[in-house]
């Protein structure tokens, strides 16, 4: 019966392991404000997870080097504890719990993607931990009555509705025929709802409405249907992989469509990866470097773009910019609250009304940013094959005129 002894030893070994690994870090240690974040460093969202992390790090370095955060007459520096959520909501929820109850974090930054934010929000809400998130845009995040969730970005249903309205306008106010394909995830499905609303209001007809799997590597079936039915607008949304897959296969299959509207073009570095093939793609973006917003830390979009490129070796997609903005919001709130009391910080966050290089930030009741419109840019290439993203809508910031309809592949 010695086997039982082994089991007993085993159980006690676990007990010891658990008891020795309890490390409690306070939220503010010495002159440091420690924020917690679960980020997708591996898995399907890993590239966007890294954009998010780079954005956070960029802002932490900048704020710290420019004097840190002044609370109650003392100066504090930001520091972030990261964990890898593996792009998995189950893991993300577990990590949030771990950051709060084991690491003692009292202020959180958001993860990448709506699905993961949805998994984390109930946890932060339960503990009353204020979370400023920059990458969870799904509208359903803001209708659950969360009090401690603040998003610096515009909700997902607004991403592409401008594209549909523009298409209708160019069609002489008559409804258009829309083909759409969306990944089965919280964010993309919300973009879809936005299109459905826009279609209803403009009297447009949806002729193809496909759902694409996660880990999106093939959408040839949808494109074959598009070729056959010739819609006026093709809408695709499926994070970075969706954008890459769509452009690759549209070029391969030579699919002609007057308007191609997408999300995540800049995160996917479309113009770099696919060059002229990505030309004319219309992309929804939370931010673009040419927008004229300003702040004291990053000066403006162009400066942010240059600094970020210098530090990380690639141009910042909006996912990075909005992540940096989240830190600016936190800094502002801490200073206005003048305290590290979670409730006071929460109230200060709710009262945020500021401009950052990324845009104006003001939170509605549900926590979404209502003071910053989406922009649409179009990938445009010159004769040398060098491509650039140029803002085409809204007109206030447009740096180029929308090219419509997209020339046929046979004419390119």
């Amino acid at each position, binding site marked *: 019966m010695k086997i039982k002894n082994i089991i007993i030893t085993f159980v006690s070994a676990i007990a010891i392991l658990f008891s020795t690994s309890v490390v409690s870090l306070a939220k503010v240690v010495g002159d440091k404000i420690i924020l917690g974040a679960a980020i997708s460093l591996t898995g399907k969202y890993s590239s966007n997870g890294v954009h998010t992390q780079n954005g956070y790090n960029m802002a932490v370095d900048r704020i710290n080097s420019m004097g840190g955060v002044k609370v109650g007459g003392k100066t504090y520096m930001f520091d972030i504890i990261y964990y890898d959520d593996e792009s998995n909501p189950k893991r993300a929820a577990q990590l949030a719990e771990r950051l709060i109850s084991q690491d003692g974090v009292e202020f959180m930054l958001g993860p990448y993607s709506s699905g993961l934010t949805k998994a984390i929000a109930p946890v932060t809400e339960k503990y009353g931990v204020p979370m400023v998130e920059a990458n969870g845009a799904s509208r359903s995040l803001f209708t659950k009555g969360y009090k401690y969730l603040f998003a610096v970005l515009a909700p997902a249903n607004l991403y592409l509705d401008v594209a549909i309205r523009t298409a209708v306008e160019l069609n002489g106010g008559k409804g258009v025929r829309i083909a759409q394909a969306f990944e089965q995830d919280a964010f993309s499905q919300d973009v879809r709802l936005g299109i459905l609303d826009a279609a209803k209001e403009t009297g447009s007809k949806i002729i193809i409405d496909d759902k694409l799997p*996660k880990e999106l590597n093939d959408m040839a079936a949808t494109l074959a249907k598009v070729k056959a039915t010739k819609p006026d607008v093709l809408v695709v949304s499926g994070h970075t992989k969706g954008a890459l897959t769509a452009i690759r296969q549209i070029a391969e299959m030579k699919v002609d469509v007057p308007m191609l509207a997408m999300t995540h073009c800049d995160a996917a570095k479309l113009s770099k990866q696919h060059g002229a093939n990505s030309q004319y793609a219309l992309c929804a973006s939370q931010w673009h470097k040419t927008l004229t917003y300003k702040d004291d830390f990053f000066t403006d979009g162009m400066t942010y773009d240059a600094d970020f490129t210098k530090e990380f070796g690639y141009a910042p997609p909006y996912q990075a910019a909005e992540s940096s903005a989240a830190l600016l919001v936190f800094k502002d709130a801490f200073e206005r609250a003048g305290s590290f009391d979670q409730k006071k910080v929460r109230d200060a966050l709710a009262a945020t009304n500021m401009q950052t290089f990324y845009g104006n930030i003001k939170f509605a009741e549900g926590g979404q940013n209502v003071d910053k419109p989406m922009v649409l840019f179009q990938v445009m290439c010159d004769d040398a094959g060098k491509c650039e993203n140029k803002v085409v809508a809204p007109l206030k910031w447009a740096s180029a005129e929308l090219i419509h309809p997209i020339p046929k592949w046979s004419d390119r």
Partner: protein
Amino acid sequence: MNKNIILYAAILIFGVAAPFVFPAFKVQLSILCILIILAITWNVQGGEMGYNTFGNILFYGLGMYLCASVQVGMFFPLAEWTEGGGEKTFVHTPAQFFQGFAVGLAVAAIVPAIVAGLIGYSILGLRGHYFAICTLGLGVAAGEISGGIEIIGAGQGFTTPPFPKVGSLEARGEFFYFCSFAVLIFTFLAVKAIYSTRFKLVLNAIRDNEDKAEAMGIQTMKYKIIGWMISAFFCGLAGGIMGGLVGYIDSTDVAFDGREMGVFMVLMAILGGKGTLWGPVIGATVFHIFKEGFWTFFLGWQYVALGVLIVVIVIYFPEGIMGWLREKYPERFGEVVDEADRKAQVELK
């Protein structure tokens, strides 16, 4: 027998005291309980019956969706709850929450068992690799299908009812921990009881030589189906609790998570030693501790480390930890070893 009682008492005391002794680890401990349940139930099918299945994730995911749907649907219109961007917020009262969860769990156990019976009837005729590959498809298909069903949230996912405001901040963690611990004990005792009957011998006979078993007059199909139904029953329970614990159900990443949970349950049973009662328990515990450790100390490399662990298991512990122990210390498992006979055998080799 005396030692057994001490052991069980020790585990019970540890289990009851754990959330208070290690309050920060409640979630990890709850997940450990769930993992052990999954490993034990997989072992009924894969270890005792010899039908290696990757399909048990189907019952786990089914249980998760059913439990949450019942919990919501009993009191509020489910379609409005899960509607994308729904503007309405429903709040469960504590009584509604717990009643809903209890009924949900019951449904989450019974329906998967019935489904297992139906599916089992049609596919348990397959054997070996064919069965394994067929069941692999079940989980994948279920994930894709559920991702398209609007009433359970489709691609948007399903937010399970938030825990009502009762007790302290810790109440939620404690509730789910004790739920999973209670179900773990229930599962363990039930499976232990089953293993002491003729039923287990029949399963073993099917594993060792199905044709012979049939020739001896055993209605193998009947037993195979019942075996899988038992497996599904507890898998569904585990899924139901996990859904509430995570708070957000996604079709392919949380519910029908064949790539993680589906593989993990097989791995844990094999690591501990399949075909034993304690093997899956030990396997799941070791696995969970390793995983949590890798996660903390090898950030970004955790899957590489996990991969190395799998390779090591296959090379050095093909029979699992229990199998290895049994080979090393056979007398401790009540096996009588005749030293002279053993030597003679070694020399023969």
